[in-house]
């Protein structure tokens, strides 16, 4: 096969486009360290004051802990329920596998804002608004497609005879799953879990409808704050989120290829 190289024009265009794609994040990081209210070029001095402000602010700290708790609970639950469901779906243990799968994937296809308002109405009618568990379940709903997709693709890559070998060797169904299938699914589940965690951590369009005035998550707080204008402490909070994402991405690179999601 003849190797092809991108022309210099294509390379130049690609660099410009990649710059465009990463500009907002870079700017946010710069702004969070900038000594001035408005970011200038060149920046006039550096400071960590904005971070100090965020990390001592009760509102931000509560939002951060709510976000992390919510994402952890939702991801954990999503992984357990999603793996169990994927196992049953993969082995076609029930009728209507395709219909069930479409239903699981539906929250990915529906506009998020529609799911948000539908849940708002529903939860209000049931009088359950403001319960943390409602937020968790809503997030399980929107993260489940990623876990199931990832688990199913891992299951497909598995040699079905490996689990059979375990059973013939004396392991009951659950033991075979725990000792053989689960360890082999781990990379896929880690990937699905990371994607689920990031999705939950980022979500605004569903979350915002289910919060009470006393509750907030970090992205919703940032979203609400900009109504009052651009403020460097928002940039600092945003930078914390970017750093979190970067760390997750770097850690994840060791285990998984993200290409499986696209």
């Amino acid at each position: 096969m003849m190797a092809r190289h991108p022309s210099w024009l294509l390379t130049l265009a690609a660099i410009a486009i990649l710059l465009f794609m990463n500009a907002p994040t870079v700017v946010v990081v710069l702004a969070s360290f900038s000594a001035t209210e408005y970011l200038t070029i060149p920046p006039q001095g550096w400071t960590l004051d904005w971070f100090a402000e965020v990390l001592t602010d009760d509102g931000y700290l509560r939002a951060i802990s709510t976000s992390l708790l919510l994402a952890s609970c939702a991801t954990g639950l999503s992984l357990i329920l999603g793996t169990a469901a994927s196992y049953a779906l993969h082995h076609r243990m029930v009728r209507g596998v395709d219909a069930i799968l479409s239903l699981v994937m539906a929250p990915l296809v529906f506009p998020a804002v529609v799911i948000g308002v539908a849940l708002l109405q529903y939860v209000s009618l049931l009088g359950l608004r403001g319960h943390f568990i409602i937020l968790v379940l809503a997030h399980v709903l929107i993260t489940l497609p990623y876990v199931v997709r990832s688990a199913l693709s891992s299951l497909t890559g598995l040699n079905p005879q490996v689990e059979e070998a375990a059973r013939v060797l004396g392991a009951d169904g659950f033991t075979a799953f725990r000792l053989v299938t689960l360890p082999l699914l781990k990379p896929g589940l880690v990937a699905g879990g990371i994607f689920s965690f990031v999705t939950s951590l980022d979500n605004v369009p569903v979350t915002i409808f289910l919060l009470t005035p006393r509750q907030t998550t970090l992205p919703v707080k940032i979203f609400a704050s900009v109504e009052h204008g651009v403020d460097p402490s928002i940039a600092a909070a945003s930078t914390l989120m970017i750093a979190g994402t970067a760390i997750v991405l770097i850690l994840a690179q060791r285990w998984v290829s993200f290409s499986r999601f696209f």
Partner: protein
Amino acid sequence: MRAPSTGYGLLTPVLALLVAGFLAPTAIMALLSLRTYSGMQGFGDEWTLANYIFVIGDPYYLLIIGRTLMLGLIVTAACLLLGFPLALFIQRSRPAVQTAAILLVIFPLLCNIVVRSFGWMVLLAPRGLINEALMAAGLIATPLDLMYNLTGVIIGLTQIFLPFMVLLLVPALQNIPADVEAAAFTLKSSRPRVFLTITVPLAIPGIITGSILVFVLSISALVTPRMLGGPTYKVMATQIYDEFMTNLDWPAGAALAFVLTVIALVLIWGANRVAAHFTRGFSA
């Protein structure tokens, strides 16, 4: 030997969640969108299409629906225009460059949409980086209106959904056998001709999938239009948000939500059929 009861046992929690937490809310919203409503008494007992007639008949709502669809088209076109060259670059680069470029595509994708939209506010605001730079350079005297209008929302949404387009186009291009293009070159076809007659048509399934995805995500977007469009420049999602959170006109909001859902689902369904048709055509 697996008993079906085990299967239902494993699926019950997920099915229960989907039925109680997704199907039921959607169905109830569909029903309520067909009820009379007044802000004082809440929902009435009569069935009516008034909410839909109101949403589709009112010039203000029509303007918003039309604006949302136009926004979707522009953002999709922009994503294609920027995504195709980048995908082509990635496909034709060395593996090391490929990995680096893909990481630079995925990183913004994983960054929060609120954070990225905020980044654009820092850049596009009247006293933002771009206006400051242009004024400092003496190119403009007064700040350009880059935000709280169509321009801002387009820039923001394009950047936000571009990664999806690129990540769908790269595999589409990689699926084109290299010898097909090589064969065309040996037949003395010119480079642009090969590109237009071979590369682009073979990438069509990827282009369709990517375009539909970006379009649907764009017309459903809430955060970016709100942050970069401001409270006054409204699209469907932000209008739905206001109906529910500010105006408290839930039936109108629900009707608008269903109009949005129907557009999205019809497009996705149609795109799957078209893509399937193309895939069949090529593999046959």
